[in-house]
């Protein structure tokens, strides 16, 4: 949303959550032998990021 | 040829199970797979059974991937893996339902030969459990038998008797791969021995060739490990 203002606390909290999601994505990609699980993991993380971004902008 | 490993490497998250392993297996063979704990015996058997997928390289059983020919593969895990409530009769029901090549007549013969009591798995001793699981697997009419430490927990005298009768009467059309860390047990029993060391095939020899060299399996084992 143009002109949206974020406070320091929000930036830190969302930063930590995004960082954790990136880490989770990395683990979900590397920690299985199943290709389906791997791609599904990416999809789930992407959806979570999207959902979070949407919540952030609303 | 019945089965083949082509330069197979299996990496786990931090360790390597086997490294660049190549070998061929033929029908009618009874093969002893030897090695210390952690040398890659279980990984090799699981790769052949299609329970693990190779990181690199390829596995073939009867010209297909192991998962495609798993109806022809009888695998016995070293895990104590039956349901606690199962009796030999329940086990028969499970096998007959899931494996089309299960032979109930042979199963009952094996139960008698292996002296498996008709009681729940929970109340069996370790040796009795191993005997039941062995009877279940050997009752299949498969082409490739992969037995991972099938005799552990069974007393020494019975082990010898079971192993000898198993290998002596081995089926023409099938191949048996039996892993053990009891090297002395393999003496004079298997026609071919494979020796794994740190995930690599350190020795692949016919027992008669070893004998011709005046070497026992144990000698060869110690020589390789040295």
């Amino acid at each position, binding site marked *: 949303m143009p002109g949206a203002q974020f406070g320091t606390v929000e930036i830190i909290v969302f930063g930590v959550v995004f960082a954790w999601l990136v880490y*989770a994505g990395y*683990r*979900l990609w*590397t*920690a*299985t*032998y*199943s*290709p*389906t*699980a791997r791609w*599904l*993991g990416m*999809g*789930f*993380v992407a*959806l*979570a990021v*999207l*959902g979070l971004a949407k919540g952030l902008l609303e | 040829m019945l089965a083949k490993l082509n330069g197979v490497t299996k990496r*786990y*998250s931090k360790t390597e199970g086997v490294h660049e392993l190549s070998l061929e297996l033929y029908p009618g063979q009874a093969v002893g797979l030897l090695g210390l704990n952690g040398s890659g015996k279980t990984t090799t058997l*699981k790769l052949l*059974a*299609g*329970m*693990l*997928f190779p990181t690199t390289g390829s596995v073939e059983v009867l010209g297909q991937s192991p*998962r495609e020919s*798993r*109806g022809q*593969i*009888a*695998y016995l*895990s*070293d*895990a*104590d*893996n*039956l*349901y606690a*409530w199962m009796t030999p009769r*329940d086990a028969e*029901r*499970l096998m*007959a*339902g*899931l*494996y*089309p090549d299960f032979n109930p007549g042979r199963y009952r013969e094996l139960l008698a030969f292996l002296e498996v009591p008709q009681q729940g798995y929970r109340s069996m001793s370790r040796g009795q459990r191993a005997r039941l699981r062995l009877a279940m697997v050997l009752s299949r009419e498969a082409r490739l038998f992969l037995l991972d430490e099938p005799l552990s927990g069974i007393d020494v005298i019975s082990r010898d008797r079971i192993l000898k009768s198993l290998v002596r009467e081995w089926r023409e059309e099938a191949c048996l791969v039996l892993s053990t860390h009891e090297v002395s047990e393999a003496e004079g029993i298997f026609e071919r021995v494979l020796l794994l060391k740190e995930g690599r095939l350190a020795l692949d020899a016919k027992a008669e060739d070893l004998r011709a060299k005046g070497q026992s399996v144990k000698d060869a084992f110690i020589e390789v490990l040295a």
Partner: protein
Amino acid sequence: MMNAFRTLLWLELRKFGVFGLGLLLVVAGWFFMARQTFEWNGYKLESAAMVFAVTAFVAVGGSIAYLAALIMDFGREYRAGRWSLLLGSPQPGWLYLAARTLMGVGVLTLFNGGLWLVQTFWLGQVGVSLPIGLGAGIWLYLLGGLALVVPALFLGLWVAAYIPGKATLIALIIGVIGLGQVLEWSARLWGSQFYRWLPAWKLPAPGVEQNPAVRMEWENFPGLPSEAFVILSVLTALFFFVASRLWQEVEA
């Protein structure tokens, strides 16, 4: 194939039969407890409300406990080395999942259906009559967790796929978030589309088709929202398919 399916169903029955029986005993126990509630508080509307609330609570709690057991079973079988027994068999993955699904749906239907009957019976005593058809359907499907059996099985397998890599907690968290997100986005993105394709079922939401403003508020429908039902059915089929693939790729 039929023989294998019967065997797998028998296996599920042996594994979860005791749990299922326990749930049915809960239903029987609640029948008498509900009666006591009316005896103590009198046959009035407050007692009926109380019985309704407790029944709903027991239904949700029992269903969740059973679903959790279904989820955790994959991990337990993995740790017991039992997958080598099952994966080695030449049966396709979907057959295993179908047996587990049927068992799960069967137990939950008996449990929640039983609770519904208990509640209907005692509420009938104070003159509150609940319609059996649609109400019981929603009860079973949503409160009873029937819609969750396949997603629960999927979640169990998905987490189990991460046991060798020791990332099960991350897989569980992301799996739950992911399932929620998939549900939310499918409702959001396809929601308006579904309405155009759906036949005009005469469900208790009269006038909805004529009023575009109500379309997006499908959650608030007082009946069986046909759209949610369609979405959940599609997602169930999808997750059943994905879980079957996972089963084929899992390593023992």
